[in-house]
Protein backbone atom coordinates (compact mmCIF):
# COMPACT_ATOMS: atom_id res chain seq x y z
CA UNK A 1 0.00 0.00 0.00
CA UNK A 2 1.36 3.39 -0.99
CA UNK A 3 1.90 5.79 1.84
CA UNK A 4 2.61 9.33 0.79
CA UNK A 5 4.92 11.38 2.92
CA UNK A 6 2.92 14.54 3.46
CA UNK A 7 3.87 17.75 5.13
CA UNK A 8 1.50 18.65 7.92
CA UNK A 9 0.15 22.10 8.58
CA UNK A 10 -1.87 23.47 11.44
CA UNK A 11 -5.47 23.96 10.34
CA UNK A 12 -8.89 24.13 11.93
CA UNK A 13 -11.53 21.67 10.76
CA UNK A 14 -13.24 24.48 8.85
CA UNK A 15 -10.00 25.42 7.09
CA UNK A 16 -9.28 21.78 6.35
CA UNK A 17 -12.71 21.42 4.70
CA UNK A 18 -12.07 24.60 2.70
CA UNK A 19 -8.74 23.19 1.49
CA UNK A 20 -10.56 20.06 0.33
CA UNK A 21 -13.00 22.30 -1.55
CA UNK A 22 -10.08 24.18 -3.14
CA UNK A 23 -8.65 20.90 -4.38
CA UNK A 24 -12.04 19.61 -5.57
CA UNK A 25 -12.50 22.85 -7.55
CA UNK A 26 -16.31 22.74 -7.57
CA UNK A 27 -17.98 24.55 -10.46
CA UNK A 28 -20.49 26.39 -8.26
CA UNK A 29 -20.58 27.20 -4.53
CA UNK A 30 -23.68 28.98 -3.16
CA UNK A 31 -22.77 30.39 0.23
CA UNK A 32 -24.34 32.04 3.23
CA UNK A 33 -22.67 32.62 6.61
CA UNK A 34 -23.68 30.99 9.88
CA UNK A 35 -21.64 30.18 12.97
CA UNK A 36 -19.79 27.82 13.28
CA UNK A 37 -19.69 27.05 9.56
CA UNK A 38 -18.68 30.54 8.42
CA UNK A 39 -14.90 29.90 8.35
CA UNK A 40 -15.49 27.14 5.78
CA UNK A 41 -17.04 29.46 3.20
CA UNK A 42 -14.89 32.41 4.22
CA UNK A 43 -11.65 30.46 3.79
CA UNK A 44 -12.88 29.05 0.50
CA UNK A 45 -13.93 32.52 -0.72
CA UNK A 46 -10.40 33.69 -0.01
CA UNK A 47 -9.02 30.88 -2.17
CA UNK A 48 -11.32 32.01 -4.99
CA UNK A 49 -10.36 35.66 -4.53
CA UNK A 50 -6.69 34.66 -4.64
CA UNK A 51 -7.26 32.85 -7.92
CA UNK A 52 -6.54 29.38 -6.56
CA UNK A 53 -9.77 28.10 -8.08
CA UNK A 54 -12.17 29.70 -10.57
CA UNK A 55 -15.33 28.42 -8.87
CA UNK A 56 -18.43 30.58 -9.39
CA UNK A 57 -19.52 31.83 -5.96
CA UNK A 58 -23.15 32.71 -5.36
CA UNK A 59 -23.71 34.96 -2.37
CA UNK A 60 -27.31 34.07 -1.71
CA UNK A 61 -29.75 35.68 0.69
CA UNK A 62 -30.52 32.58 2.80
CA UNK A 63 -29.64 28.93 3.23
CA UNK A 64 -32.94 28.04 1.62
CA UNK A 65 -31.79 29.78 -1.53
CA UNK A 66 -28.27 28.32 -1.12
CA UNK A 67 -29.67 24.82 -1.31
CA UNK A 68 -32.16 25.77 -4.03
CA UNK A 69 -29.41 27.24 -6.18
CA UNK A 70 -27.26 24.19 -5.41
CA UNK A 71 -29.94 21.82 -6.70
CA UNK A 72 -30.38 23.92 -9.85
CA UNK A 73 -26.63 24.04 -10.46
CA UNK A 74 -26.00 20.36 -9.71
CA UNK A 75 -28.78 19.21 -12.03
CA UNK A 76 -27.62 21.65 -14.68
CA UNK A 77 -24.34 19.71 -14.79
CA UNK A 78 -22.10 21.59 -12.35
CA UNK A 79 -20.29 20.08 -9.38
CA UNK A 80 -21.75 22.02 -6.45
CA UNK A 81 -20.81 22.35 -2.80
CA UNK A 82 -22.43 24.44 -0.10
CA UNK A 83 -22.07 24.66 3.68
CA UNK A 84 -24.33 25.32 6.61
CA UNK A 85 -25.10 24.71 10.29
CA UNK A 86 -27.95 24.68 12.79
CA UNK A 87 -30.78 27.06 11.85
CA UNK A 88 -29.33 27.29 8.36
CA UNK A 89 -29.66 23.56 7.89
CA UNK A 90 -33.13 23.73 9.42
CA UNK A 91 -34.09 26.33 6.83
CA UNK A 92 -32.47 24.24 4.11
CA UNK A 93 -34.06 20.94 5.05
CA UNK A 94 -37.08 21.31 2.77
CA UNK A 95 -34.74 21.50 -0.19
CA UNK A 96 -32.36 18.81 1.14
CA UNK A 97 -35.27 16.37 0.90
CA UNK A 98 -35.99 17.57 -2.64
CA UNK A 99 -32.31 17.32 -3.59
CA UNK A 100 -32.35 13.67 -2.58
CA UNK A 101 -35.59 13.05 -4.43
CA UNK A 102 -34.29 14.75 -7.59
CA UNK A 103 -30.99 12.88 -7.19
CA UNK A 104 -28.85 16.02 -7.05
CA UNK A 105 -25.43 14.99 -5.63
CA UNK A 106 -24.72 18.23 -3.77
CA UNK A 107 -22.00 18.16 -1.11
CA UNK A 108 -23.04 19.99 2.07
CA UNK A 109 -20.34 20.76 4.63
CA UNK A 110 -21.94 21.05 8.05
CA UNK A 111 -20.49 22.60 11.20
CA UNK A 112 -22.83 20.70 13.53
CA UNK A 113 -24.53 22.99 16.02
CA UNK A 114 -27.48 22.99 18.39
CA UNK A 115 -30.92 24.11 17.26
CA UNK A 116 -32.85 26.99 18.84
CA UNK A 117 -34.44 27.60 21.27
CA UNK A 118 -32.96 28.86 23.32
CA UNK A 119 -30.56 30.01 20.66
CA UNK A 120 -27.13 28.47 21.06
CA UNK A 121 -24.20 28.53 18.68
CA UNK A 122 -22.26 25.57 20.04
CA UNK A 123 -21.82 22.01 18.94
CA UNK A 124 -24.26 19.15 18.99
CA UNK A 125 -25.86 16.89 16.40
CA UNK A 126 -29.45 18.15 16.51
CA UNK A 127 -29.12 19.83 13.12
CA UNK A 128 -27.83 16.72 11.38
CA UNK A 129 -30.54 14.59 12.94
CA UNK A 130 -33.19 16.98 11.64
CA UNK A 131 -32.09 15.97 8.12
CA UNK A 132 -31.63 12.33 9.08
CA UNK A 133 -34.51 10.98 7.02
CA UNK A 134 -34.06 13.29 4.03
CA UNK A 135 -32.24 10.78 1.85
CA UNK A 136 -29.02 12.81 2.07
CA UNK A 137 -26.06 10.68 3.08
CA UNK A 138 -24.35 11.68 6.34
CA UNK A 139 -20.76 11.28 7.43
CA UNK A 140 -19.25 12.72 10.61
CA UNK A 141 -15.60 13.66 11.21
CA UNK A 142 -13.85 13.25 14.55
CA UNK A 143 -11.16 15.84 13.91
CA UNK A 144 -9.79 18.27 11.32
CA UNK A 145 -7.91 15.57 9.43
CA UNK A 146 -11.06 13.52 9.02
CA UNK A 147 -13.00 16.64 8.05
CA UNK A 148 -10.52 17.07 5.19
CA UNK A 149 -10.45 13.39 4.17
CA UNK A 150 -14.23 12.94 4.26
CA UNK A 151 -14.79 16.18 2.34
CA UNK A 152 -12.45 14.97 -0.39
CA UNK A 153 -14.21 11.61 -0.59
CA UNK A 154 -17.71 13.10 -0.46
CA UNK A 155 -18.14 13.96 -4.17
CA UNK A 156 -17.02 10.46 -5.23
CA UNK A 157 -19.62 8.89 -2.93
CA UNK A 158 -22.47 11.29 -3.75
CA UNK A 159 -21.89 11.32 -7.52
CA UNK A 160 -21.46 7.58 -7.93
CA UNK A 161 -23.94 6.38 -10.60
CA UNK A 162 -25.49 3.96 -8.10
CA UNK A 163 -25.98 6.74 -5.57
CA UNK A 164 -26.61 10.25 -6.96
CA UNK A 165 -27.66 11.67 -3.61
CA UNK A 166 -26.61 14.72 -1.60
CA UNK A 167 -24.09 14.12 1.16
CA UNK A 168 -23.65 15.99 4.42
CA UNK A 169 -20.10 16.09 5.78
CA UNK A 170 -20.44 16.89 9.46
CA UNK A 171 -17.83 18.23 11.82
CA UNK A 172 -18.66 19.24 15.39
CA UNK A 173 -19.12 22.97 15.79
CA UNK A 174 -16.12 24.58 17.54
CA UNK A 175 -14.70 21.24 18.79
CA UNK A 176 -13.62 20.59 15.20
CA UNK A 177 -14.55 23.63 13.10
CA UNK A 178 -12.50 26.03 15.22
CA UNK A 179 -9.85 23.75 16.74
CA UNK A 180 -6.45 23.93 15.05
CA UNK A 181 -4.56 20.65 14.68
CA UNK A 182 -1.87 19.25 12.43
CA UNK A 183 -3.50 18.22 9.13
CA UNK A 184 -1.79 16.46 6.23
CA UNK A 185 -3.13 17.66 2.88
CA UNK A 186 -2.70 15.64 -0.29
CA UNK A 187 -0.88 17.23 -3.20
CA UNK A 188 -3.41 19.19 -5.29
CA UNK A 189 -2.96 17.04 -8.40
CA UNK A 190 -3.38 13.76 -6.51
CA UNK A 191 -6.50 15.07 -4.78
CA UNK A 192 -8.00 16.25 -8.08
CA UNK A 193 -7.20 12.93 -9.77
CA UNK A 194 -8.88 11.07 -6.91
CA UNK A 195 -12.04 13.18 -7.11
CA UNK A 196 -12.33 13.02 -10.93
CA UNK A 197 -14.82 14.74 -13.21
CA UNK A 198 -18.46 15.48 -12.43
CA UNK A 199 -20.79 13.40 -14.56
CA UNK A 200 -24.51 12.93 -14.07
CA UNK A 201 -27.15 11.56 -16.44
CA UNK A 202 -29.68 14.04 -17.83
CA UNK A 203 -27.96 17.34 -17.04
CA UNK A 204 -30.09 20.37 -17.94
CA UNK A 205 -27.27 22.00 -19.90
CA UNK A 206 -25.91 18.87 -21.54
CA UNK A 207 -27.50 16.23 -23.76
CA UNK A 208 -31.14 16.06 -24.78
CA UNK A 209 -33.86 18.11 -23.13
CA UNK A 210 -35.09 16.66 -19.84
CA UNK A 211 -37.65 17.60 -17.17
CA UNK A 212 -36.59 17.55 -13.50
CA UNK A 213 -38.80 17.81 -10.44
CA UNK A 214 -41.97 16.57 -12.09
CA UNK A 215 -45.31 15.85 -10.46
CA UNK A 216 -45.86 12.26 -9.34
CA UNK A 217 -49.28 10.88 -8.43
CA UNK A 218 -49.85 7.86 -6.17
CA UNK A 219 -49.33 5.61 -9.20
CA UNK A 220 -45.65 6.56 -9.48
CA UNK A 221 -44.43 8.46 -6.38
CA UNK A 222 -43.82 5.29 -4.36
CA UNK A 223 -41.60 3.74 -7.06
CA UNK A 224 -39.61 6.95 -7.51
CA UNK A 225 -39.05 7.22 -3.75
CA UNK A 226 -38.13 3.55 -3.64
CA UNK A 227 -35.41 4.17 -6.22
CA UNK A 228 -34.02 6.91 -3.99
CA UNK A 229 -34.17 4.66 -0.92
CA UNK A 230 -32.37 1.91 -2.84
CA UNK A 231 -29.69 4.39 -3.84
CA UNK A 232 -29.13 5.28 -0.19
CA UNK A 233 -28.77 1.57 0.59
CA UNK A 234 -26.29 1.20 -2.28
CA UNK A 235 -24.23 4.04 -0.83
CA UNK A 236 -23.05 1.65 1.90
CA UNK A 237 -21.01 -0.36 -0.64
CA UNK A 238 -19.94 2.77 -2.47
CA UNK A 239 -18.66 4.30 0.77
CA UNK A 240 -16.61 1.14 1.27
CA UNK A 241 -15.21 1.25 -2.29
CA UNK A 242 -14.29 4.92 -2.09
CA UNK A 243 -12.65 4.66 1.33
CA UNK A 244 -10.70 1.58 0.16
CA UNK A 245 -9.51 3.48 -2.90
CA UNK A 246 -8.46 6.38 -0.65
CA UNK A 247 -6.50 3.95 1.51
CA UNK A 248 -4.89 2.32 -1.54
CA UNK A 249 -3.77 5.65 -2.95
CA UNK A 250 -2.90 7.63 0.14
CA UNK A 251 -2.57 5.19 3.03
CA UNK A 252 -5.29 6.74 5.15
CA UNK A 253 -8.34 4.62 5.95
CA UNK A 254 -11.68 5.85 7.28
CA UNK A 255 -14.05 2.87 7.46
CA UNK A 256 -17.73 3.39 8.31
CA UNK A 257 -16.97 2.60 11.95
CA UNK A 258 -13.86 3.55 13.86
CA UNK A 259 -13.40 0.58 16.20
CA UNK A 260 -10.93 1.34 18.97
CA UNK A 261 -9.67 -1.52 21.15
CA UNK A 262 -12.95 -3.41 20.74
CA UNK A 263 -11.51 -6.83 19.81
CA UNK A 264 -11.76 -8.40 23.26
CA UNK A 265 -13.80 -5.64 24.90
CA UNK A 266 -16.54 -6.52 27.37
CA UNK A 267 -17.87 -2.98 27.63
CA UNK A 268 -17.81 -0.22 25.01
CA UNK A 269 -18.83 3.33 24.19
CA UNK A 270 -20.66 4.03 20.91
CA UNK A 271 -20.87 7.62 19.70
CA UNK A 272 -20.49 10.05 16.78
CA UNK A 273 -17.95 12.81 16.23
CA UNK A 274 -15.27 14.61 18.16
CA UNK A 275 -16.10 13.13 21.58
CA UNK A 276 -14.48 9.92 20.30
CA UNK A 277 -11.08 11.41 21.19
CA UNK A 278 -12.11 11.81 24.84
CA UNK A 279 -13.62 8.33 24.95
CA UNK A 280 -10.45 6.79 23.47
CA UNK A 281 -8.32 8.45 26.16
CA UNK A 282 -10.56 6.94 28.83
CA UNK A 283 -10.37 3.55 27.11
CA UNK A 284 -6.56 3.75 27.17
CA UNK A 285 -6.58 4.65 30.86
CA UNK A 286 -8.90 1.80 31.80
CA UNK A 287 -7.07 -0.66 29.56
CA UNK A 288 -3.87 0.22 31.38
CA UNK A 289 -5.69 -0.72 34.60
CA UNK A 290 -6.66 -4.06 33.08
CA UNK A 291 -10.30 -3.31 32.19
CA UNK A 292 -11.55 -4.69 28.89
CA UNK A 293 -13.20 -1.61 27.37
CA UNK A 294 -13.38 -0.13 23.88
CA UNK A 295 -14.94 2.59 21.79
CA UNK A 296 -16.76 2.67 18.43
CA UNK A 297 -17.21 5.97 16.60
CA UNK A 298 -19.68 6.15 13.73
CA UNK A 299 -18.33 7.93 10.64
CA UNK A 300 -21.00 6.80 8.17
CA UNK A 301 -24.33 7.54 9.79
CA UNK A 302 -26.59 7.43 6.71
CA UNK A 303 -26.78 4.84 5.32
CA UNK A 304 -26.32 3.24 8.73
CA UNK A 305 -23.69 0.46 8.80
CA UNK A 306 -25.87 -2.18 10.50
CA UNK A 307 -23.78 -5.21 9.62
CA UNK A 308 -20.48 -3.56 10.47
CA UNK A 309 -21.85 -2.53 13.85
CA UNK A 310 -23.12 -6.05 14.52
CA UNK A 311 -19.69 -7.42 13.68
CA UNK A 312 -17.86 -4.77 15.68
CA UNK A 313 -19.88 -5.36 18.84
CA UNK A 314 -20.40 -9.12 18.44
CA UNK A 315 -18.39 -10.07 21.51
CA UNK A 316 -19.13 -7.01 23.62
CA UNK A 317 -21.57 -7.62 26.46
CA UNK A 318 -22.66 -4.07 27.25
CA UNK A 319 -22.53 -0.84 25.26
CA UNK A 320 -23.25 2.73 26.34
CA UNK A 321 -24.65 4.64 23.37
CA UNK A 322 -23.88 8.35 23.68
CA UNK A 323 -26.16 10.61 21.63
CA UNK A 324 -25.46 14.30 21.13
CA UNK A 325 -29.07 14.89 20.09
CA UNK A 326 -32.47 14.02 21.45
CA UNK A 327 -35.78 12.77 20.12
CA UNK A 328 -37.97 14.19 22.88
CA UNK A 329 -40.42 11.61 24.11
CA UNK A 330 -38.47 8.71 22.60
CA UNK A 331 -34.97 7.24 22.64
CA UNK A 332 -32.38 9.32 20.80
CA UNK A 333 -31.33 8.62 17.19
CA UNK A 334 -28.03 6.72 17.46
CA UNK A 335 -29.37 4.52 20.25
CA UNK A 336 -32.43 3.64 18.17
CA UNK A 337 -30.28 2.82 15.15
CA UNK A 338 -27.89 0.72 17.24
CA UNK A 339 -30.77 -1.09 18.90
CA UNK A 340 -32.19 -2.04 15.49
CA UNK A 341 -28.77 -3.13 14.24
CA UNK A 342 -28.13 -5.28 17.32
CA UNK A 343 -31.63 -6.75 17.65
CA UNK A 344 -31.40 -10.24 19.17
CA UNK A 345 -27.61 -10.04 19.22
CA UNK A 346 -27.56 -10.29 23.00
CA UNK A 347 -25.65 -7.01 23.38
CA UNK A 348 -27.02 -4.93 26.26
CA UNK A 349 -27.39 -1.32 25.07
CA UNK A 350 -27.88 1.65 27.39
CA UNK A 351 -28.84 5.13 26.20
CA UNK A 352 -27.16 8.37 27.26
CA UNK A 353 -27.52 11.92 26.02
CA UNK A 354 -24.56 14.26 26.41
CA UNK A 355 -23.20 17.55 25.18
CA UNK A 356 -26.33 19.41 24.05
CA UNK A 357 -25.60 23.02 23.14
CA UNK A 358 -21.83 22.56 23.37
CA UNK A 359 -21.67 21.19 26.93
CA UNK A 360 -18.30 19.47 27.24
CA UNK A 361 -17.99 15.73 27.68
CA UNK A 362 -15.21 15.45 30.27
CA UNK A 363 -13.43 12.15 30.82
CA UNK A 364 -15.28 11.72 34.09
CA UNK A 365 -18.57 11.36 32.22
CA UNK A 366 -17.16 8.63 29.98
CA UNK A 367 -15.84 6.90 33.10
CA UNK A 368 -19.31 7.14 34.62
CA UNK A 369 -20.99 5.57 31.55
CA UNK A 370 -18.50 2.70 31.50
CA UNK A 371 -18.80 2.24 35.28
CA UNK A 372 -22.61 2.13 35.08
CA UNK A 373 -22.35 -0.56 32.42
CA UNK A 374 -20.96 -2.85 35.11
CA UNK A 375 -24.05 -2.21 37.23
CA UNK A 376 -27.56 -3.66 36.73
CA UNK A 377 -29.42 -2.00 33.83
CA UNK A 378 -31.75 0.91 34.50
CA UNK A 379 -34.70 1.99 32.41
CA UNK A 380 -34.79 5.10 30.24
CA UNK A 381 -32.17 7.58 29.19
CA UNK A 382 -29.16 8.67 31.24
CA UNK A 383 -27.84 12.21 30.94
CA UNK A 384 -24.11 12.90 31.07
CA UNK A 385 -23.02 16.30 32.33
CA UNK A 386 -26.55 17.44 33.16
CA UNK A 387 -26.79 19.28 36.45
CA UNK A 388 -28.90 17.37 38.94
CA UNK A 389 -28.74 14.01 37.15
CA UNK A 390 -26.82 12.35 39.97
CA UNK A 391 -23.72 11.91 37.86
CA UNK A 392 -20.41 13.64 38.28
CA UNK A 393 -21.93 17.06 37.63
CA UNK A 394 -22.81 19.38 40.47
CA UNK A 395 -26.21 18.73 42.09
Amino acid at each position, binding site marked *: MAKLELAQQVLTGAEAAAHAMRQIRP*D*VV*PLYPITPQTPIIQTFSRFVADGET*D*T*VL*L*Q*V*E*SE*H*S*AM*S*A*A*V*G*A*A*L*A*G*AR*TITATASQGLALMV*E*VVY*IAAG*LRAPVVIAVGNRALSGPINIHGDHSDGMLARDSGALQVYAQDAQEAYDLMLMAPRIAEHPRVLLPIMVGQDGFNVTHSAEPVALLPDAEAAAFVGEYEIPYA*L*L*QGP*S*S*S*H*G*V*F*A*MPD*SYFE*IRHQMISAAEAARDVYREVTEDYRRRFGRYLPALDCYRTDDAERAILLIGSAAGTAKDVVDELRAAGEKVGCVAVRLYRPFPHEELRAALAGVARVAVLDRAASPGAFPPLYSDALAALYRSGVDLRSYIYGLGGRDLPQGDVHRALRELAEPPRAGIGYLGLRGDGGDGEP
Partner: protein
Amino acid sequence: MASLKQLALREEEQTGFFGGHSLCAGCGIPPIVRTVLGSIPGKKVAISATGCLEVATTRYPFTAWGVPWIHVAFENAAAVAGGVEAAYRALSQRGKIGEEPVTFVAFAGDGGTYDIGLQALSGALERGHRLIYVCYNNEAYMNTGIQRSGASGAGSPSAART
Protein backbone atom coordinates in the same frame (compact mmCIF):
# COMPACT_ATOMS: atom_id res chain seq x y z
CA MET B 1 -38.72 40.26 -32.91
CA ALA B 2 -42.06 38.86 -34.04
CA SER B 3 -45.30 40.43 -32.85
CA LEU B 4 -47.71 38.51 -30.66
CA LYS B 5 -49.99 38.08 -33.68
CA GLN B 6 -47.17 36.62 -35.76
CA LEU B 7 -46.11 34.32 -32.92
CA ALA B 8 -49.66 33.02 -32.54
CA LEU B 9 -49.73 32.17 -36.25
CA ARG B 10 -46.45 30.24 -35.97
CA GLU B 11 -47.60 27.85 -33.26
CA GLU B 12 -46.44 24.74 -35.13
CA GLU B 13 -42.86 26.09 -35.13
CA GLN B 14 -42.82 26.44 -31.37
CA THR B 15 -41.41 23.31 -29.80
CA GLY B 16 -40.73 24.62 -26.29
CA PHE B 17 -44.15 23.79 -24.88
CA PHE B 18 -46.57 21.18 -26.17
CA GLY B 19 -50.26 20.49 -25.77
CA GLY B 20 -51.64 17.43 -24.01
CA HIS B 21 -51.13 18.87 -20.55
CA SER B 22 -53.99 19.02 -18.06
CA LEU B 23 -54.35 22.77 -17.57
CA CYS B 24 -57.98 23.94 -17.59
CA ALA B 25 -59.61 24.83 -20.88
CA GLY B 26 -59.37 28.58 -21.28
CA CYS B 27 -56.49 28.98 -18.82
CA GLY B 28 -54.22 31.82 -19.81
CA ILE B 29 -50.92 30.31 -18.84
CA PRO B 30 -50.28 27.90 -21.78
CA PRO B 31 -50.38 30.64 -24.43
CA ILE B 32 -48.26 32.84 -22.15
CA VAL B 33 -45.56 30.17 -21.82
CA ARG B 34 -45.74 29.31 -25.53
CA THR B 35 -45.49 32.95 -26.48
CA VAL B 36 -42.63 33.72 -24.10
CA LEU B 37 -40.61 30.69 -25.16
CA GLY B 38 -41.50 31.27 -28.82
CA SER B 39 -40.24 34.81 -28.72
CA ILE B 40 -36.80 33.86 -27.34
CA PRO B 41 -34.38 32.78 -30.05
CA GLY B 42 -31.89 29.99 -29.43
CA LYS B 43 -31.43 27.61 -26.57
CA LYS B 44 -33.37 28.15 -23.36
CA VAL B 45 -33.97 26.51 -19.99
CA ALA B 46 -37.26 26.92 -18.12
CA ILE B 47 -37.62 26.97 -14.34
CA SER B 48 -41.01 26.68 -12.64
CA ALA B 49 -42.26 27.40 -9.17
CA THR B 50 -44.79 24.99 -7.73
CA GLY B 51 -48.26 25.78 -9.04
CA CYS B 52 -50.83 24.90 -11.68
CA LEU B 53 -48.32 25.24 -14.50
CA GLU B 54 -45.85 22.84 -12.93
CA VAL B 55 -48.43 20.30 -11.73
CA ALA B 56 -50.46 20.17 -14.90
CA THR B 57 -47.57 20.03 -17.38
CA THR B 58 -45.32 17.39 -15.84
CA ARG B 59 -47.48 14.58 -14.57
CA TYR B 60 -45.07 11.64 -14.53
CA PRO B 61 -44.19 10.02 -16.92
CA PHE B 62 -45.23 12.83 -19.29
CA THR B 63 -43.95 16.34 -19.84
CA ALA B 64 -45.29 19.21 -21.92
CA TRP B 65 -41.88 20.87 -21.94
CA GLY B 66 -39.77 20.72 -25.07
CA VAL B 67 -36.97 22.69 -23.42
CA PRO B 68 -34.87 21.60 -20.42
CA TRP B 69 -37.08 22.26 -17.41
CA ILE B 70 -36.69 22.16 -13.64
CA HIS B 71 -38.98 22.63 -10.68
CA VAL B 72 -37.76 22.36 -7.08
CA ALA B 73 -40.30 24.01 -4.75
CA PHE B 74 -42.82 26.81 -4.39
CA GLU B 75 -40.77 29.66 -2.98
CA ASN B 76 -37.46 29.25 -4.76
CA ALA B 77 -37.89 29.49 -8.55
CA ALA B 78 -35.62 32.55 -8.67
CA ALA B 79 -32.92 30.85 -6.56
CA VAL B 80 -33.06 27.68 -8.64
CA ALA B 81 -32.89 29.76 -11.83
CA GLY B 82 -29.87 31.56 -10.37
CA GLY B 83 -28.20 28.23 -9.69
CA VAL B 84 -28.79 27.00 -13.23
CA GLU B 85 -27.51 30.26 -14.67
CA ALA B 86 -24.43 30.09 -12.42
CA ALA B 87 -23.81 26.54 -13.63
CA TYR B 88 -23.92 27.82 -17.20
CA ARG B 89 -21.31 30.50 -16.41
CA ALA B 90 -19.11 28.02 -14.55
CA LEU B 91 -19.26 25.35 -17.26
CA SER B 92 -18.76 27.92 -20.03
CA GLN B 93 -15.66 29.44 -18.46
CA ARG B 94 -14.18 25.97 -17.99
CA GLY B 95 -15.01 24.97 -21.56
CA LYS B 96 -17.25 22.12 -20.46
CA ILE B 97 -20.21 23.22 -22.60
CA GLY B 98 -20.43 24.95 -25.96
CA GLU B 99 -20.42 28.72 -26.27
CA GLU B 100 -23.98 28.83 -27.54
CA PRO B 101 -25.89 31.41 -25.50
CA VAL B 102 -28.69 30.07 -23.30
CA THR B 103 -31.65 32.06 -21.99
CA PHE B 104 -33.05 31.17 -18.57
CA VAL B 105 -36.75 31.78 -18.01
CA ALA B 106 -38.48 31.34 -14.66
CA PHE B 107 -42.27 31.07 -14.41
CA ALA B 108 -44.08 31.64 -11.12
CA GLY B 109 -47.55 32.72 -10.11
CA ASP B 110 -48.40 35.69 -7.96
CA GLY B 111 -48.36 33.57 -4.78
CA GLY B 112 -44.91 32.27 -5.70
CA THR B 113 -43.74 35.81 -6.46
CA TYR B 114 -45.49 38.41 -4.29
CA ASP B 115 -45.71 36.18 -1.21
CA ILE B 116 -43.62 33.09 -0.57
CA GLY B 117 -41.06 33.66 -3.34
CA LEU B 118 -40.34 37.35 -2.71
CA GLN B 119 -37.11 36.81 -0.76
CA ALA B 120 -35.58 34.44 -3.32
CA LEU B 121 -36.55 36.85 -6.11
CA SER B 122 -35.00 39.76 -4.22
CA GLY B 123 -31.73 37.85 -3.83
CA ALA B 124 -31.64 36.76 -7.46
CA LEU B 125 -32.25 40.31 -8.70
CA GLU B 126 -29.62 41.73 -6.36
CA ARG B 127 -27.04 39.21 -7.59
CA GLY B 128 -27.76 40.24 -11.15
CA HIS B 129 -28.32 36.87 -12.77
CA ARG B 130 -28.99 36.96 -16.50
CA LEU B 131 -32.49 35.52 -16.45
CA ILE B 132 -36.06 36.35 -17.36
CA TYR B 133 -38.62 36.04 -14.57
CA VAL B 134 -42.25 35.78 -15.60
CA CYS B 135 -44.90 36.28 -12.93
CA TYR B 136 -48.31 35.19 -14.19
CA ASN B 137 -50.42 37.24 -11.90
CA ASN B 138 -53.99 36.01 -11.75
CA GLU B 139 -54.37 37.68 -8.38
CA ALA B 140 -54.94 34.60 -6.21
CA TYR B 141 -53.69 31.11 -5.32
CA MET B 142 -55.50 29.27 -8.12
CA ASN B 143 -53.93 25.83 -7.73
CA THR B 144 -55.27 25.46 -4.20
CA GLY B 145 -58.67 26.92 -5.07
CA ILE B 146 -58.70 30.73 -5.29
CA GLN B 147 -57.31 31.92 -1.96
CA ARG B 148 -56.12 35.50 -1.64
CA SER B 149 -52.47 36.41 -2.27
CA GLY B 150 -50.49 39.58 -1.80
CA ALA B 151 -51.45 40.42 -5.38
CA SER B 152 -55.21 40.14 -4.83
CA GLY B 153 -56.98 43.45 -5.14
CA ALA B 154 -58.81 44.81 -2.13
CA GLY B 155 -62.27 43.29 -1.99
CA SER B 156 -61.52 40.59 -4.59
CA PRO B 157 -63.81 37.58 -4.35
CA SER B 158 -62.00 34.47 -3.14
CA ALA B 159 -62.99 30.84 -2.58
CA ALA B 160 -64.17 31.74 0.90
CA ARG B 161 -66.81 34.03 -0.62
CA THR B 162 -67.85 32.12 -3.73
